[in-house]
């Protein structure tokens, strides 16, 4: 691996960024040197994304910093995309590649965007692509359709493209900086080695790499140094060689090194609110995509949190359960019936009195142009259908009542729902489903993009639904709220149940430990497997 040499290539000094009155980043400094791979880790909400967005130019307000690049120093906020001209390129989680196009077309995508050539010499471009693949030791066919490549190879294409971007952007001889913003999250662990090799090759050219990841093992493996953020502050900045896995977990979770973080073994049996298992929801052997063999039980009146780190597959539990996506296997028992989850669909779920609040509100939960009445009253239209027609006046009155009950502002049934704030839209979505008094409530990140006030209200609504006897699964990446609202928490790590935490043992730290430790366990296992192979 290359040594960090001759001072930093890019450095951020004293970055402070406020959201309203509270600082999301507080005096954060971080740098990446020539040929250095710099890890950036931290829990959700620690400020990682905010930092990356400041660099990318998406946060212009309430921002103070000094940004130093070779021959350049800035104290103002950046405009979106401005930094690419200074030789910084991003690869995001979604990679930004198009599956229908060829590898070569994907590579040239960003060039085409600002290209004034009249003619594209495809032969020449192909040769150039082959050349660069060879240089980085990649075995990729420029003519292949991107979607036929393995996910890791697709990520490699995205990285090579970013490198090309750096080369075309950088002035003089300064190498650029490549930012990988959780770009490995959805890659299977097995193929990631090829990705690490590529990153090392990029760094060997002298470029700096900022590597944002949740995966402690890979950070330790690929990074030369690591910056740890917690609550918007830098709690550690150290070479990887001086850090152990336990150190990092401890730093991420508690902000201090050397706090003994142990797996929790004490499990208390909790007496469910309703003593009989009548009306319980029991999921068994749920597998598909990242998930494998997950079991979850929810009793009436109970809120069970399901969480984990990004990429562990926690959100799949509710998506499979309601049939939004098809599981590969698994069954669920409810109301004396056993249902094959491979055959589940949203309409079947609804027939079982199971409702689902999706995480992607704009795409999956509301039709922004339609009125609140048309969005919210949809599941109960039948109640206002009488003598052959919908009683619109009654429907409007009922809608107004529901909106007021669920504190949707403004409680104006004719208002297009898209004009409401995120929080009020979400309250309206909850109203839509909870007014049906469902037996089973599945929530997927119900407070995403919702302001603090509305959050509190949403928690109250969820608790009220549970108090009325609903069995609630609360899936969220926000550990604080999961810890606050759940009677029990199921922590998913690498697609499996890592831990079940109950009652008084529930805390953010306990969840964080389970989420990160689950990863170490499987890392240990694979290490053990490797050892066995060597023997």
């Amino acid at each position, binding site marked *: 691996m290359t040594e960090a040499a001759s001072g930093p290539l890019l450095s951020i000094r004293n970055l402070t960024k406020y959201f309203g009155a509270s600082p999301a980043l507080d005096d954060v400094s971080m740098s990446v040197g020539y040929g250095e791979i710099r890890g950036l880790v931290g829990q959700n909400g620690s400020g*990682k994304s905010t930092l990356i967005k400041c660099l990318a130019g998406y946060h212009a307000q309430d921002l103070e910093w000094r940004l130093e690049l070779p021959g350049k120093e800035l104290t103002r906020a950046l405009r979106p995309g401005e930094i690419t001209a200074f030789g910084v390129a991003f690869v995001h989680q979604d990679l930004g590649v198009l599956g229908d196009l060829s590898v070569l077309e994907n590579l040239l995508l960003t060039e085409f965007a600002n290209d004034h050539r009249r003619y594209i010499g495809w032969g020449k471009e192909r040769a150039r692509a082959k050349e660069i693949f060879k240089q980085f030791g990649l075995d990729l066919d420029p003519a292949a359709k991107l979607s036929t490549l393995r996910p890791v190879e697709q990520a490699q294409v995205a990285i090579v493209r970013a490198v090309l971007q750096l080369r075309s952007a950088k002035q003089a001889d300064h190498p650029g900086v490549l930012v990988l913003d959780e770009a490995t999250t959805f890659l299977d662990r097995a193929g990631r080695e090829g990705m690490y090799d590529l990153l090392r090759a990029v760094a060997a050219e002298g470029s700096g790499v900022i590597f944002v990841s949740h995966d402690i093992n890979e950070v330790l493996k690929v990074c030369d140094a690591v910056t740890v953020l917690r609550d918007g502050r830098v709690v550690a900045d150290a070479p990887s060689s001086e850090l152990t896995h336990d150190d990092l977990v401890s730093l991420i979770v508690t902000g201090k090194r050397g706090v003994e973080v142990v797996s929790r073994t004490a499990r208390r049996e909790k007496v469910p609110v309703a003593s009989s298992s009548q009306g319980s929801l029991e999921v068994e052997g749920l597998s598909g995509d990242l998930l494998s063999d997950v079991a979850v039980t929810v009793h009436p009146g109970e809120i069970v949190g399901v969480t984990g780190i990004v990429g562990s597959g926690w959100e799949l539990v509710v998506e499979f359960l309601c049939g939004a996506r098809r599981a590969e296997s698994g069954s669920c028992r409810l109301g004396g019936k056993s249902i094959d989850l491979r055959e589940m669909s949203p309409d079947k779920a609804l027939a079982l009195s199971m409702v689902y609040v999706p995480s992607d509100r704009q795409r999956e939960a509301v039709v922004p142009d339609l009125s609140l009445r048309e969005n919210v009253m949809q599941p109960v239209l039948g109640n206002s259908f009488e003598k052959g027609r919908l009683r*619109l006046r009654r429907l409007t009155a009922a809608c107004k009542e529901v909106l007021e009950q669920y504190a949707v502002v403004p409680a104006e049934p*004719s208002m297009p729902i898209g004009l409401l704030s995120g929080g009020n839209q979400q309250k309206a979505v909850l109203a839509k489903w909870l007014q049906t008094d469902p037996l089973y409530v599945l929530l997927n990140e119900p407070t995403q993009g919702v302001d603090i006030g509305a959050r509190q209200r949403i928690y109250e609504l969820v608790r009220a639904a549970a108090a009325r006897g609903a069995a609630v699964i609360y899936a969220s990446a926000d550990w604080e709220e999961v810890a606050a609202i759940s009677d029990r928490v199921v922590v998913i790590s690498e697609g499996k149940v890592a831990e079940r935490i109950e009652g008084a043992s529930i805390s953010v730290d306990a969840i964080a430990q389970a989420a990160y430790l689950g990863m170490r366990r499987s890392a240990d296992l694979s290490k053990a497997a490797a050892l066995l192979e060597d023997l």
Partner: protein
Amino acid sequence: MSGAPRRTHEGFVRRYGVIIVWVVVIIVFSLLRPKTFPTASNFETLLASQAPLGILSLALLIPLSAGDYDLSVASVLTLSGMIVAILNVNHGMNVWLAALVAVLVGAAIGLLNGIICVGAGIDPFIVTLGMGTVVNGVTLWISNSTPVSGISQSLVNMVVVHRIGGLSVEFFYLMIAAAVIWYLFEFTPAGRRILVVGRGREVARLSGMRVKRIRILAFVAAGFVGALAGVVYVGTSGSADPTAGTTLLLPAFAAVFLGSTTISPGRFNAWGTMVAVYFLTTGISGLALLGVQTFVQQLFYGGALVIAVLLSGITRRSKRHKDASQLPTEPQQPGDAGTSNGSGTPGQAVASQSPPSGGSVLGTGGE
């Protein structure tokens, strides 16, 4: 009616703009041709003669509301008319029985459209374009490419000859059809489901709606109603022309899109479509009375379609801005890491949504 703008001056103009322009057009033609245009007989012809186009537009409106184009409806109209003619004239079948066959064939074509588009997940724009051409081919084939005349007078009587209040009964058929469609979309849960399916397929699916079935049924309904329009069409003249429908497709689209800018602005609606049909017809007939050449018809229909789509886009956008500015502002807490893949502010979200009438249909075509 739902989705109505506030009762302001501006709202009124927005909602009844097409009607106002229509009235202006009538006045202008009346002044230009005072002897021929503003006469009872001209208005009677105007109102009654547009039943086939009007019913065809209503047929088109159903899949459009569900988010799917159906470019084959006009061909179904032609085929349906030809089936009635051939069965009745060449095979001596009872004309009503022939009409029933024709309507069932129309529904079957709709079903086929639905199965290919929805079942196999192919873009309806292409599928129905191809299907329409196939249907045209079949029509030419069964008719030997020649018009068939001599259809039973009982059908003709029931379409144009009988009059109520001076108007041919076909006008009332059209009004009944419009009322049925209006009732379906306005007063039944089924109509509301179609609307949601058209606006947000994923929302509809996750809300437990059987999206595929709804879309297929919308195609079937389009075929059925399109074939009905064909029966009325042959009833107006007693003969079937194997190329009749081709000139009706564009006016029907123009009427439905223009209709979506009025009465219930922002959504395809039956009465708006009726207003648009008559507005377009008035324009054409007035121009004919002025003695302009027939190519002007094409300019008129085509121009109306483009302007209609443009207008519906503009009104919707301005309406949104206006409504948004009236909202109480609420503090937004920008999400951090955990919510970084979230859905952004409502303003952005609305802006990024495609326009509901023309645009959304285009946008969802590929699913």
